[in-house]
């Protein structure tokens, strides 16, 4: 059974159909890329999955359970975490605190235990910190030396890394990455590709929106192509690379491409 089963999702903004009856599935342990020209509906699809913007019609089943209509924090609790296309780190909080927020829902400390401080609060905090450090260690020397720095002072690439760390730390079954390599140089991009593979090896499934073809082709098990809110193709990287409809969507018509 598929880990994520999206069926016939439709989302409209006024007259604009952002998604038209899109269906796709993702199996456990898979890396699936979602590609398509700007405005194809990729981020909207992410928003529909995570509950940020529920779809008008259609269903999203995660682990066999319907998650449409659930608020985002419940979707996250069920094991889907995400990063954002426009980075959303908690600017004034330190790097470590940012990541610790990612494990908030695994915590048990409420108002009263925070005030009375039974020993388990300290244990929970220490364990939380430990696990955050482990995740931050995935990024080598990028984030670990900057634990106490406010997130807004980080470089662009490091803020992207921080978002990924925050999404990873709760141990999600599925992680949605929205353009994780945007604004990164080739060297940093390569590191992200390695990281995505590593994430997958560690037992998370990955759905990634990506524009850089090199990344898409090297990292994905399967590729899903969206254009104008419709799924126009799906398949292995090799099959997609040869698919005429995809080339048409991307290059704006075959004839013109041949004429050049």
């Amino acid at each position, binding site marked *: 059974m598929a880990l994520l089963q999206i069926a016939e999702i439709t989302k409209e903004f006024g007259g604009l159909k952002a998604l038209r009856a899109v269906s796709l599935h993702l199996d456990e342990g898979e890396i699936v890329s979602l590609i398509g020209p700007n405005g194809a509906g990729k981020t909207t699809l992410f928003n529909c999955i*995570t509950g*940020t913007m529920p779809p008008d019609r259609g269903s999203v089943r995660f682990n066999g359970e319907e998650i449409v209509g659930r*608020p*985002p*924090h419940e979707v*996250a*609790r069920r094991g889907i*975490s*995400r990063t*954002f296309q426009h980075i*959303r*780190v*908690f*600017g*004034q*909080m330190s790097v470590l*605190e*940012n990541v*610790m*927020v*990612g494990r*908030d*829902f*695994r*915590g048990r*400390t*409420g*108002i009263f235990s*925070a*005030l009375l*401080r039974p020993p388990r*609060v*300290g244990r*929970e*905090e*220490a364990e939380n*910190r430990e696990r955050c*450090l*482990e*995740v*931050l*260690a*995935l990024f*080598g020397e990028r984030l*670990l030396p900057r*634990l106490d720095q*406010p997130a807004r002072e980080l470089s662009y690439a490091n803020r992207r890394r921080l978002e990924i760390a*925050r*999404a990873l730390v*709760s*141990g*999600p*079954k599925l992680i949605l990455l929205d353009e994780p390599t945007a604004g990164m140089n080739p060297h940093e991009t390569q590191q992200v590709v390695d990281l995505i593979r590593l994430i997958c090896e*560690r*037992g*998370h499934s990955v759905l990634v929106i990506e524009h850089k073809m090199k990344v898409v082709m090297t990292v994905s098990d399967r590729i899903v192509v969206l254009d104008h809110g419709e799924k126009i193709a799906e398949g292995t990287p090799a099959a997609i690379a040869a698919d005429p409809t995809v080339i048409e969507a991307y290059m704006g018509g075959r004839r013109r491409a041949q004429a050049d």
Partner: protein
Amino acid sequence: MRGLKSIMANSPVLLIIAAFAAVPLFVANMYYLQVLVFIGIYAILALSLNLLNGYVGMLSIGHAAFYAIGAYASAKLTIDLQLPWVLALAGAGAIAGGFGYLIAKPTLRLSGIYMTLVTLGFNMILFLVLQNWMGFTNGPLGIMDIPPPSIFGFALGSRLQYYYLILTLVLLTVFSMHRLMDCRFGRALTAIRENELAAEATGVDTTRYKTQAFVLSASYAGIAGSFYAHFVKYISPDSFTINESFILLAMLAFGGQGNLIGPMVGAAALILIPEIFRPLLEYRMFVYGGILIVMMLVRRQGLFGSRSYRLRLTRFDPSPVRVYQRGDKFLPEG
């Protein structure tokens, strides 16, 4: 050994506490002590508002409403029900918190400015209720002869005793807020302020946290109200107008928010400035306004307006940070 270490680590805080405890030895003047007591009351109020405006980033501009509820609840509980003050204090906190819940539950779905307007409206409505419900609140005449606080049969009388009582309350407020903000709860609130959408998407139940923060904030204000009622011994609706709420906002603006030091500094400054310039008679409000304007021009975030001003009263994990290698064990939890 570890106890001693943590005492040493907190020594600046302990020194400040000792200094405040010693103040009456040097300040014998009753008027000065009275001013200090008021600074204490406003410090609690500003800290309670800071919980919302500073940490969660919800702008509440009618906070005097909860102050009023605490004051009236406490007066009513001690006069009509003959409850001892300690219970009335707890009751005032609980009742103000209850009202906070009633306001928060339906309005937290509203975003930003709409919620702000609700708090403003609540303050105005509450003022009208206090003003016109003759049977219960005695209207504009107010409630007189509120008994002094009695702690287990010992009734407070002198200014000095009030000073130590408010000092204790302020310390309890700071201590409890520090504990709240130093762990999961505080992190979640700050995350909501920094980026609500991201917090929600990472699994933070934002509505629940915001409701909790609102209730807590209201009960701290209620506790300040209770002390105020029993200190001044007379309350009337005039003490709890919108103007009062705005003074609290000005304190946060002046002292800075989002930490525990700024609001207290703001409260102290804005209580002291009118008192210091008393010789200028009615012109002192010019000075007051002028200082606020200059402050906003020179240092917009307030005197202590950053997260780096932190009271580190406790540390969870004193062990040094380990450096991890890329191949280290990391598995998702099942």
